[in-house]
Structure formats: C-alpha cells, structure tokens
C-alpha cells in the first residue's frame, strides 16, 4: 500500500479522498489556496501547505506549485479528485515524471478521453454506440451551421475539452447556431482554456445513465452497475441514484458490457465512468470521465465497495479485490447535490458566510461535505457545498429517507438548492421514477417560491417574540439572575 498521498483538490472531494486514505493508514497531505486556509480539508489532513492565492489558476491549477509541495512533503502519490487537474493529461505526466504515483489512469488515456471528439472516434471503433454528430471540432460559425444541418435539428454544441455542462448550448433552428457557437466557444475557453466545440444530435427528453468502471494494472476490468443522473439543471446533475429505476437486469448487463468494452479499448486503469444517453429504448455513448465522479457514493452504497479504497489499491499495484460476479447490487441509493445556488431565483450563485451548519444523521444517511460553520463561500470555486446520500432496501424508502434528511439539514447564511430538492422528493413523477433530463423544465411549479400558511404564522410569531425579547432586554439589561439564554450560554462557556 502507498505510504503517503498529496490530494490536489479542495472541498468535499478532498475530504472524501483524505478520509479514504486515512483509513488505509496513508499519510495525507492537503494543499490550499489563501482563501481556503480555514477549510475543512485543511483541518482533516495530516499536513497542509499553501499553494497560492484564491484564483484557481494560481493555486489549485498551478502544477509547479503543487509538485513543489509534493516534493517537499515527500508525497509518494498524488490524487487529483475531480475537476481542476483531474483530467489533464499533462498533469498526470508531470506527476509521474517527478517520481510520484498518479492515482488515476495513464496520461495517454486521459488525453484520448479528454478530447471528446477523439473519444467518440475510439468508442465507435470499439463498437460502442455513439450519438450522431461530428467527430472533429468546428472552426467557424458557418462550419457549425453546416454540421448542425447535416446532423439534423435539434442539435447540441459542446466543448471538446468539456464536461459539467460548461460550454454547452442546445440549438433548435439554423438561425440560432451562430450565437450559440460564439457563446459555447467563449464559455469553453473560460472554463477549460480551449475553445474547441463540436456538434451532436440533441436527444429530446433523454435519460442520463452512466456506468461505473474499474480497471487494474493486471488487465482486469469490472463495472459496478449504473447510475441514473437525469435530474439536472443547466446540464448539471442535481439528483443521482443507483440503480436506475427504469433499467431491467438485461439492459443493465448490456450497458455494463458495452462500458467494459470501452474501458478495455483504452487499457483502462483505475476508476472511470462511461456516460450514456438513453432514449427510445436505445443508449448512446456520451463521454468517458477518467476520474472519480461527484456521484460515486450511490454506487458505494448499493455495492458496498469503497471506490476510493479501490483507487488506492490499484495505484499500489494490487489487483481488483472482487471479480465481476462477486460484486453485489443491494437496495437503492440516492444523492442530492447541495449547492450554494438560489433555486427560486434562476439558480443564481450565492455568496456569504455559513453561520450555522447542522447536517442530517441517522440510519441510511451519509453526508459528504466540504463546509463547516464559519466557512466563507465565495465565487472562486464550484458551488457544491456537499452531497446528501441515502440508502434503503427499496427506492420508495430511499426517497422518504432523503425527504426526512433534507428536512434536518440546516445551513445558515447561504441560500441553497435544498428546498427545491425537498419538493422534488414529494413530486409524483419523481416518486414514480418518471425521469428525464427535461424534468425541471417540465415541472416549473417546483421553482416557484411559495410559503405555507403554517410557515407564515411561524415567521410572524417568531419575529414578534424576537423583537419583543430584544426590547425587553434593552429596557432592563442584565437585571435579575436570568439573562437571555444566549447571554447565559456565552457567560458559562467563556467566563
């Protein structure tokens, strides 16, 4: 087993990796930007070193600074998490060239899959069905128009270097292509430093289903079943689950086999995910992500496999702990992403200080988070505050449990998407598993800010009592033995 690892990331995924490493007895080394000095991932690691200012390009994306910390801290391995440098072939190469183990696939694999157009070519060659579209990037508005017309509307423009919905635009008529092309190139350049864009047939109301894969250095490849990620906003996943509520054993087997074929075609080592779009009874290769996914916990809960542990085992040269037929699939798991976005205000990102934080607990509930009371949420990084994951023997129980857990979650000072998620858990289509990527568009009522009569009454009563108490205290400060509960508490705690 590895002796030490530098985790080149922040937030919930840095914590996830640190926790996994610590359980294997691996010394953990965190890096942080100046904005993250007090962040939970710094506090959870054995060691932590600053790699630069808040701006990611000068810290979490600064390869030289990160490698310098790896050298000084004698880190045997480097784990990239997801995002930031996780899918940059050059980084993986530099890590290995500097004498460290890279916890992930070979640089060449990352490069091949990172270029979405090359990935489409390789998958088609391996016999995996791909969505109709261009397999090369587009040079101009007019080229984009021609390609879109030959694929047939509606189409979607996508960043070749992309992922996570950035640099993506759906286009329904030829007139919109030019503007959408410009926007996609601009967003793609800003997000990935690469403006290459390609076009694909846009599938109406598809389901987003992905297969978790694992390969080792001994030539073994297994899949760990599917995840259903159809509930999205702005092409970003919001709710994920395993297994998919609409896939039967036979289709599960076929998609798993296709994904494993894709992995073998690129000699895959480590954790990876093949994303499929599923529409009209067919599934099409969308992309392969050569790292851990945000939503990996739902797979962990239904299989009992710790994917981060497996990553470290494979990186240590061990064979995969289980064969395909030994991997169980038990019960149902659901994940909700808790982001600092205001769902009733067009998902506008929100900033501020977390002035209270009470995560949910209890049977079948897992919280993978990256915040604490006192955390400052800025605009430098992703809005993902944490992930709430539930498990139960069946989907109905899992949804009920998620609803209960969302009700317990308290994050003060920052608006989050949790109230929307809570409504989704009650919505009949979701409860029955009638999912598609168009779900939120088709349920606009979920996005209306509303207040129940009971909430209104509670707010009125609470504010009147608060103001009344404040005035009483101002009128007679610290008289008698009482004091306010607050004052009393502070005196006892700090006096």
């Amino acid at each position, binding site marked *: 087993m590895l002796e030490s690892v530098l985790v080149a990331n922040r937030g919930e995924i840095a914590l996830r990796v640190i926790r996994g490493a610590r359980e294997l007895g691996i010394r953990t080394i965190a890096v942080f930007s100046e904005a993250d000095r007090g962040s939970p991932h710094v506090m959870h690691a054995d060691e932590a070193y600053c790699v630069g200012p808040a701006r990611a390009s000068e810290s979490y994306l600064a390869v030289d600074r990160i490698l310098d910390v790896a050298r000084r801290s004698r880190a045997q391995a480097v784990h990239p998490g997801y995002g930031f440098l996780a899918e940059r072939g050059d980084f993986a190469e530099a890590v290995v060239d500097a004498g460290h183990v890279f916890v992930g696939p070979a640089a060449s694999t990352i490069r091949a899959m990172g270029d979405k157009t090359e990935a489409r070519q390789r998958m088609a060659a391996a016999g995996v069905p791909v969505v109709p579209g261009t397999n090369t990037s587009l040079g101009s508005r007019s080229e984009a128009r021609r390609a879109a017309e030959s694929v047939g509307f509606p189409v979607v423009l996508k960043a070749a270097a992309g992922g996570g919905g950035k640099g993506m635009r759906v286009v329904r008529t030829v007139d919109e292509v030019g503007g959408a092309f410009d926007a996609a190139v601009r*967003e793609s350049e800003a*997000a990935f430093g690469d403006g290459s864009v390609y076009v694909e047939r846009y599938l109406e109301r598809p389901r987003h289903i992905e297969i978790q894969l694992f390969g080792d250095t001994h030539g073994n490849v297994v899949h760990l079943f599917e995840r259903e990620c159809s509930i999205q906003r702005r092409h970003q996943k919001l709710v994920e689950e395993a297994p998919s509520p609409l896939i039967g054993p036979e289709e599960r087997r076929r998609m798993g086999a296709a994904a494993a074929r894709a992995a073998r075609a690129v000699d895959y080592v480590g954790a990876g995910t093949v994303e499929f779009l599923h529409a009209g009874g067919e599934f099409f290769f969308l992309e392969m992500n050569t790292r851990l996914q945000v939503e990996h916990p739902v797979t962990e809960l239904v299989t009992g496999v710790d994917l981060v542990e497996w990553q470290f085992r494979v990186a240590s040269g061990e064979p995969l702990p289980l064969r395909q037929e030994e991997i169980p699939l038990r019960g149902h798991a659901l994940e909700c992403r808790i982001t600092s976005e205001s769902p009733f205000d067009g998902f506008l990102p929100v900033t501020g200080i977390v002035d209270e934080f009470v995560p949910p607990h209890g049977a079948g509930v897992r919280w993978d988070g990256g915040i604490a009371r006192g955390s400052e949420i800025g605009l430098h990084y992703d809005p993902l505050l944490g992930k709430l994951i539930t498990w139960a023997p069946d989907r109905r129980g899992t949804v009920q449990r998620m609803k209960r857990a969302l*009700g317990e979650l308290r994050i003060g000072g920052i608006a989050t998407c949790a109230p929307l998620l809570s409504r989704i858990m009650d919505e009949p289509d979701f409860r029955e598993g009638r999912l598609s990527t168009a779900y939120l568009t088709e349920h606009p009522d979920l996005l209306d800010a509303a207040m129940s009569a009971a909430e209104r009454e509670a707010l009125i*009563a*609470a504010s009147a009592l608060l103001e009344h*108490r404040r005035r009483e205290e101002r009128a007679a400060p610290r008289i008698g033995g*009482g004091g306010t*509960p*607050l004052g009393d508490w*502070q005196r006892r705690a700090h006096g």
Partner: protein
Amino acid sequence: MGEASMSTRPSRYVVSLRGEDHDVVVEADGGVVIDGRRREASLVVTSPPIGHSLLLDGASVPLMARDGGRGRWEIDLGGCSFSVEVLDERQAKVRALSAISAGRTAIAPLKAPMPGLVVRVEVEEGAVVDAGETVMIVEAMKMENELRAPAAARVARIQVGAGDAVAKGQVLVEFGEVEAE
C-alpha cells in the same frame, strides 16, 4: 437554554412579511395573538447565537434568526430565508403616513445578485421590457447568468457595460414606469 424572559405586560406589534401587515399581540403568559387568533408560543435559543426552537400550539419549528436592526429580522425556516419587519404601533403609524405622501412606489432597480463580469447588455436605454425579459448576462462561477427585468418597465439608465466587473448589490439598470399609451 432557558425560556426567553417575557415581561408581565402584553405588547402589540405590526409584523410585515412579503408586503402584508399582521397585527400581533405578545402576551405576558406565553401567548401570541396573530390577527386575532391566539396561539401558545415558546421560543428559545438552542445553538447560540442564531439557532432557535419555536413551539406554536405544540407544533415544533426549528429556525435561525438574525437581528437586522431597527425591527428587521432575517429568519431561515425550511431552508429558505425570509425578511420580517416588526414595528410597534407608533412606528407603524409613522410608516403608514409617509407611505401615503410618497405616492406610488417606483420599480426597484436591477442589482447584481453576486459579484461577476458583465458579458453582454441585452437592452438599450429607453426600451420597454416585459417582466422576466432578459436584460443582461453576467458571468460568475464560470457560468453565464441571465438577469431579468423585475416588472414591465422602461429602461431608464444602464450603469454598466460589457466587460465591467460588478460587485454584489451594485445597481446595474434603473427603470421607470411604462407610460400608458
């Protein structure tokens, strides 16, 4: 965790929530009368300074409360944040009088909901926009966000241009009334 200490005399307040006023009497014995309807109420601090527990006729409501000053309270309940204003009878009368003299309310200007970069302005000064029409694109967190008109209005003044960095709360566009035709 003692009960919030209440005085022995009842007090009457006007509570404003989402544009509606409510008449509230806080009684000395733990009762709260809201628009004439009495409830047993108990409010205590649980996790200082903002964590509270409210019991209203037995119904348990966990909430977070922050004092915004001058009778304004910011309360988080069920994952959402609400602004509530509590005035006593005298203050409420003063406010009612000044509201009458001010006449009809103006349309609120468009402010930046978060720090970001103006990508594009979609309207020109003098244009008439519908409620919900996109006025400006602002990039934040590497995503483009569409900012929309709060109501049907005439674009009176545009204060920023493409490429400008804007701070949270900065006024971007001022609006005027749409004249009847």
